[in-house]
């Protein structure tokens, strides 16, 4: 490939052929404004804000135009600035200008552009279409009056996740981004992964805000309000307070949550360890009793929604274990209530999750089988950051504190749940030792780490070679599921995480999540694992105590009742009332 020498704003640079003007400019520190452009996505060039001049009266979009040798680019000629500003004025004329009360205030790309262009007054008649806000579901809200039609959400939904709920409809001023037939999200097979919320440049798609619900619980003196925090949150929430992505701020989050007024601050990692014990035993049970294999993990609620909607015939492959969030919730209203002498109806359990689908999961009817709702409120990383800011809690400068007992003692195996491959690795650490009764020499299963779409590993269990696979992002999950469906998968155990990168890339994570940021968060996760005293779930003393005092044994009666669940086919597109069939339950009854 040959090189092209080009001049951008009088700066000469040589770049390989095929480089776009935008990329070339970035190399010499020249920033060109963008809006529909996203570093992890394909070039779209539909917003037209990145126009630059390449000849007399000739403007091209920097994001989509490859350089040619001898090209001369001006990124802020009068024509460029007038046109860019004109495009911006056109967007604004049809965009609600309620920035102060917009969820994206301060993190909105459109807002930043307005600041950049010093927009104050335009001659256009401002008129925003009044479109209904879709608040139909517990996870994601779509306010398409704010949509600037950049198509980023469509790409993530169709190509990264392969779910394809969002697409374009109509023409001209009626052009909009919408589910088919303009259905509400709850009436589609949306998996509520929230990836669309993380790529939206404005406030058109966002998580359902439950902070008021939690404030009210905290202010209610009759309630005992407890909180759990998911593994992936601790390496991402710092970003909201100026830390680099991947910085572990566990102790600071604990302290902050206590300042907010939670009665107890617990770690979801505790039930992540518990999940490993239950899921590990379920796997062994299936292996030993000719159960349905490969078994697939069930921690990721977006993935479960996808399974129920798109692969209902594979439901029997999925572990019956509830996710760590729900296991925690169930224990909080039973074991914990008993232990503390509290009325379960007065316990209000909050989760801090990297995920929007967790809101939907917590609202499932199956998640209150013993009479109480496992989890009462789910906040995303972003929502927690909002609450802390609202209470003037400076996470950056707060002194670290420890989790409360008994749900604060955790392991390295649990924390890696936050990254793709983590559940698999944690499970292998336990299953290996359970089966072989030998100590694992090397704890790190590096084959299942990293951002490659599908990862495989093989482990020798007492002479039996067990093949495992890990997929993250639903389009990768689809590839594996098709193999399973066609009988081409020789795996015994499969981990599937809905979001690319796993929970560190969840739909509830701070705005600005890119592949680069995900890589840093993953590093952060494995650093935490390395620093932990205990790194295997079955060695967690608190878990041992839990079984001794309450659960009895893995897959036992109590576990079955509280920690396992079932899934059902979901098909709302065709409105067909599927015959409900229970997933095969691999738990043993005494």
């Amino acid at each position: 490939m040959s090189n092209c020498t080009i001049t951008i704003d009088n700066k000469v640079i040589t770049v390989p052929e095929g480089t776009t003007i935008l990329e070339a400019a970035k190399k010499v520190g020249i920033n060109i404004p963008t809006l529909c452009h996203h570093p992890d996505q394909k070039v779209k060039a539909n917003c037209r804000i990145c126009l630059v001049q390449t000849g007399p009266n000739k403007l091209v979009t920097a994001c989509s135009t490859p350089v040619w040798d001898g090209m001369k680019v001006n990124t802020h000629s009068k024509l460029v600035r007038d046109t860019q500003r004109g495009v911006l004025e056109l967007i604004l004329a049809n965009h609600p200008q309620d920035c102060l009360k917009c969820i994206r205030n301060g993190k909105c790309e459109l807002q930043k552009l307005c600041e950049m262009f010093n927009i104050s007054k335009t001659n256009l008649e401002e008129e925003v279409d009044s479109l209904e806000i879709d608040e139909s579901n517990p996870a994601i809200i779509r306010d398409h009056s704010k949509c600037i039609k950049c198509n980023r959400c469509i790409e993530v939904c169709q190509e990264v996740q392969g779910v394809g709920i969002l697409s374009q409809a109509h023409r001209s001023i009626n052009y909009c981004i919408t589910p088919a037939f303009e259905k509400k999200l709850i009436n589609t097979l949306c998996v509520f992964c929230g990836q669309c919320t993380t790529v939206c440049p404005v406030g058109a798609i966002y998580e359902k805000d439950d902070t008021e619900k939690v404030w009210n619980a905290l202010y209610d003196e009759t309630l005992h309000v407890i909180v759990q925090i998911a593994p992936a949150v601790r390496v991402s929430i710092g970003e909201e307070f100026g830390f680099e992505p991947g910085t572990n701020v566990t102790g600071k989050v604990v302290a902050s949550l206590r300042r907010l007024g939670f009665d107890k601050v617990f770690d979801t990692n505790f039930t992540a360890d518990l999940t490993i014990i239950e899921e590990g035993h379920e796997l062994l049970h299936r292996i030993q009793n000719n159960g349905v294999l490969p078994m697939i993990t069930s921690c990721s609620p977006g993935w479960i929604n996808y399974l129920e909607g798109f692969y209902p015939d594979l439901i029997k492959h999925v572990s019956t274990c509830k996710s760590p969030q729900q296991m925690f919730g169930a224990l909080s209203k039973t074991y914990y209530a008993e232990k503390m002498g509290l009325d379960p109806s007065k316990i209000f359990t909050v989760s801090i999750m990297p995920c929007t689908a967790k809101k939907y999961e917590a609202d499932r009817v199956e998640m209150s089988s013993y009479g109480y709702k496992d989890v009462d409120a789910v906040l995303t990383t972003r929502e927690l950051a909002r609450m802390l800011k609202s209470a003037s809690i400076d996470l950056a400068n707060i002194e670290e504190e420890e989790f409360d007992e008994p749900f604060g003692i955790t392991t390295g195996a649990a924390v890696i749940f936050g990254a793709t491959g983590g559940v698999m690795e944690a499970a292998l650490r336990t299953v290996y030792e359970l089966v072989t009764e030998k100590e694992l020499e090397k704890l790190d299963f590096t084959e299942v780490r990293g951002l490659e779409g599908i990862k495989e590993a093989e482990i020798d269990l007492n002479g039996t070679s067990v093949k495992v696979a890990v997929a993250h992002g639903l389009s990768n999950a689809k590839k594996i599921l098709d193999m399973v469906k066609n009988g081409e998968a020789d795996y015994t155990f499969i981990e599937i995480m809905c979001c690319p990168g796993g929970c560190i890339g969840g739909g509830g994570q701070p705005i600005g999540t890119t592949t680069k940021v995900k890589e840093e968060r993953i590093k952060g996760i494995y650093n935490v694992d390395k620093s932990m005293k205990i790194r295997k779930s079955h060695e967690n003393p608190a878990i041992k105590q839990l079984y001794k005092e309450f659960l009895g044994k893995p897959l036992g009666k109590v576990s079955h009742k509280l920690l396992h669940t079932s899934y059902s086919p979901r098909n709302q597109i065709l409105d067909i009332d599927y015959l409900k069939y229970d997933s095969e339950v691999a738990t043993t009854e005494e």
Partner: protein
Amino acid sequence: MNRVVNVITKNFNKYNIESIDEYVKLGGFEALKKAFELGPQGVIDEIKASGLRGRGGAAYPTGKKWEQAANVKGDRKIIICNADEGEPATFKDRYLLEYDPYKIIEGMTIAAYTVKANEGYIYIREEYKHLHNKVRRAIELAKKAGYLGEKILGTDFKFDIKVFSGAGAYVCGENSSLIESMEGKSGRPRIKPPYIKQCGLYNLPTLVNNVETFAAAASILLIGSEEYTKYGTSESKGTKLISLCGNINKPGAYEIPFGVTLREIIYDIGGGIKENKKLKFLQLGGASGAIVPADMIDLRYCYKELKDHGIEIGSGAILVADETNSVVDFIKSVQDFFLHESCGKCTPCREGNRQITKIINRFVAGDASITDLKTVEKFANVMKYASFCGLGKTAPTALLSAIKHFPVEFYQRIYKVSR
């Protein structure tokens, strides 16, 4: 003096399209035989020598386009005939399909042979439904007679054509939108690169030409480029099929040599203005074309001379407006068309059309302001410079040229001035 010629239209009303033999008797498929004699490069050279430029509107040199298509590597290539004609005032392709479908088939086959393609489609929009079966029938007869299908004219060359009924939209005249539409998606333009020639229909190398371009190519091979270039000017060679309409005595599609004046077109060919009224303006090239005031009608109808005045030949439409027409009201109808036809993909076109329409409506109602005039011009320019595809880029052409040539008509609709 009648300046109408019959080069690509020579078969019009000369044969019954139900009979391919009659077409053959008129010299049909001789051009294809000649193409086989010349070989692909020979065809390209001949087309290049003719100076033929795409007749769909963009006026890209056809010989160059075919040469590029021939040089693209690929075992499977596609030829598409773009018959998505639906722009107000443009109706010349319809005549070609209706009166000489075999010539289109022949032109496409020549193109296919030249660029080594074996599959062809004629995208005919749904409004031209009455032509669908006629063209299908012509394809069937051509196949039976050995001019299409396997072993064409006894050679090893095979080529088949299918009629594709497209939903159609103004934007589908743009090649990538047309292809999106053929793939079952909404007609919206694709980002380039990759270019259609490398990655078109179903990601295959694709050559798209307008109906008239294929007809012209077949005619050129039949009579030879030397004979063809006797028509036209030194820079705009050959002939052009125009569609003449509006306040004119003899509207219709006419083939003219490049270089006749607009005056000749209107008064000699078109028989003058209806009811002997005075000519006020023309719109050349379809809805996205410029408004040309009456005092410019001595311009010669050819690419260069018009371009020097900021006017494009476009699709070849000539719309005639007499003294009773209001420029502002005319612009409103053009604007309403584009507001309807914008695909909505890019900001300048979607939002620009929205805002410009609002302002034009104020002019129509007579309550516009002086600021409105500045604003509408500003955003027309934003559309022109910033839009994603040709639709958005050219949609404000009529408006901008109207403001340039008829500013007073706009001032008269400004509230304070008119009182």
